[in-house]
């Protein structure tokens, strides 16, 4: 099968589900659940009625989507750096683990909406606060997975490393990190989707642009097709980010896939 055909083959459930959804919403007629056709129309006017020289993107699209995605990625990268570093440190140092783990468990159970106040106090409103807020909200899956991955390295691998006198650095970068990588990637992937959620949350208070801001606007004006259009944009964005992530993962973890393949 050729590339586009294969993609089409993979995507066949999408039209089926959309069609069912259309039928169901038309039948139920709940105001807050408009049919997909109406959502599409609304999405079109919201994002795609701009001038041709800007690829038909509207001002709203150009203003909100890149701003949101930028903050999201910045927050995700920040969370990745902090989460992997701290997670591996906690995973390899029992003392550090005992000291910090309760705090980690504590912090990750606090609902982010409750923490907005703290972040507003620490950073004032703006991208800095939003990025930090996103990072704080999504760092946990990365941290916990990195910690688990680093804790549970095959003893035989570590014995081999210490027998050959590998330095701490080498142990970290050549043994611990690679063998924790599959778990870290699982964490990164969960976090990437969480980042979208936190991004929306961070834009619900005091923001002046972003997808969440637009969602709020639509909610406030009781524009349900608009609300759904933003939700759809979030879904599409999430799908795109996830696909990009999987492509990267396939490269980095190719050994893992092949080594664990049953023939």
């Amino acid at each position, binding site marked *: 099968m050729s590339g586009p055909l294969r993609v089409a083959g993979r995507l066949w459930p999408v039209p089926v589900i959309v069609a069912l959804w259309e039928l169901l919403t038309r039948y139920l007629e709940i105001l807050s659940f408009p049919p997909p056709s109406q959502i599409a129309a609304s999405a079109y006017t919201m994002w795609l009625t701009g001038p041709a020289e800007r690829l038909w993107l509207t001002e709203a699209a150009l203003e909100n989507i890149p701003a949101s995605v930028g903050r999201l990625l910045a927050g995700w990268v920040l969370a990745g750096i902090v989460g992997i570093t701290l997670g591996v440190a906690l995973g390899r140092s029992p003392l550090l683990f005992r000291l910090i783990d309760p705090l980690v468990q504590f912090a990750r159970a606090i609902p982010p909406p409750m923490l907005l106040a703290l972040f507003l106090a620490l950073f004032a409103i703006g991208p800095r606060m939003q990025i930090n807020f996103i990072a704080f909200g999504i760092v946990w899956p990365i941290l916990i997975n990195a910690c688990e991955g680093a804790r549970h390295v*095959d003893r*035989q*691998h570590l*014995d*081999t490393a*210490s*027998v*050959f*006198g*590998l*330095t701490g650095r*080498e142990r970290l970068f*050549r*043994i611990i990190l*690679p*063998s924790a*990588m599959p778990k870290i990637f699982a964490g990164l992937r969960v976090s990437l989707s969480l980042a979208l959620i936190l991004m929306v949350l961070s834009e619900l208070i005091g923001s002046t642009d972003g997808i969440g801001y637009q969602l709020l606007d639509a909610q406030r004006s009781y524009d349900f097709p608009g609300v759904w259009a933003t939700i759809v944009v979030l879904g599409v964005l999430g799908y795109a980010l996830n696909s990009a992530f999987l492509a990267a993962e396939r490269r980095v973890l190719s*050994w*893992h896939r*092949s*080594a664990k393949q049953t023939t």
Partner: protein
Amino acid sequence: MLEITNLSHTYGSGPTAHNALGGINLKVAQGELVCVVGPSGCGKSTLLRSIAGLIRPSGGQVTLNGTRVERTPDNLAVVFQDYSRSLFPWMSVADNVSLPLRRKGLDKPRRKQAALEALEEVGLQGASAKYPWQLSGGMQQRVSIARALAYRPALLLMDEPFGSVDAQTREDLEDLTLRVRGLHNMTIVLITHDIDESVYVGDRVVVLSKSPAGIVGDLRVHLPGPRDQITTREHPDFVHLRAEVGRLVRGMRSPSTSTP
């Protein structure tokens, strides 16, 4: 060089505790090659792990060049019994072999060079770019031997290193070990189940008893060197010694057992 005093080890505690080593005393001189034989499950690997500082023995101590082994000593290499799990699946075969060489301060091309040479010596010249899980069992075992030999350690511990290769390759590897040992004056402790092998490669053969392991025999092998697969194995001393070791392993204590 290596001195083991009254070494004992018990796994676990309470009713399920298992006493694996029951007071081992052993001295290995610099440059010596000591073979350890003994029944399956007696405690050979446990002894080796204690020497390597990988487990903290419950009693007694291991001293290396006068200092007590508390953590893994420097300049040591081990070929593990479970070789397949001791290779890193995310690295190519060549990388697996060259990784420890960083400790020797070699630069990248030199490391690469040394790894390729070692792989060639174990007959794996073609496999350097492959990953460990693309190799057969015997090839994986040879990679882990190549890794240990390329490292040129002062002390080399080998746990049934030639168990998964064919007879021909086994003999080649035995000779390779003897050659490398001679060139670099390594001290080697080698665990094996093959009694002929223990007599062929060893300067001494230490026989362990059923668990808890204790030393039931320590035979010095006085065979004329350099050893050779055909002539050495035909030497009357060889035949005599292997019968002797065989009897010891089977638990028939012979009158001629001697500690040198």
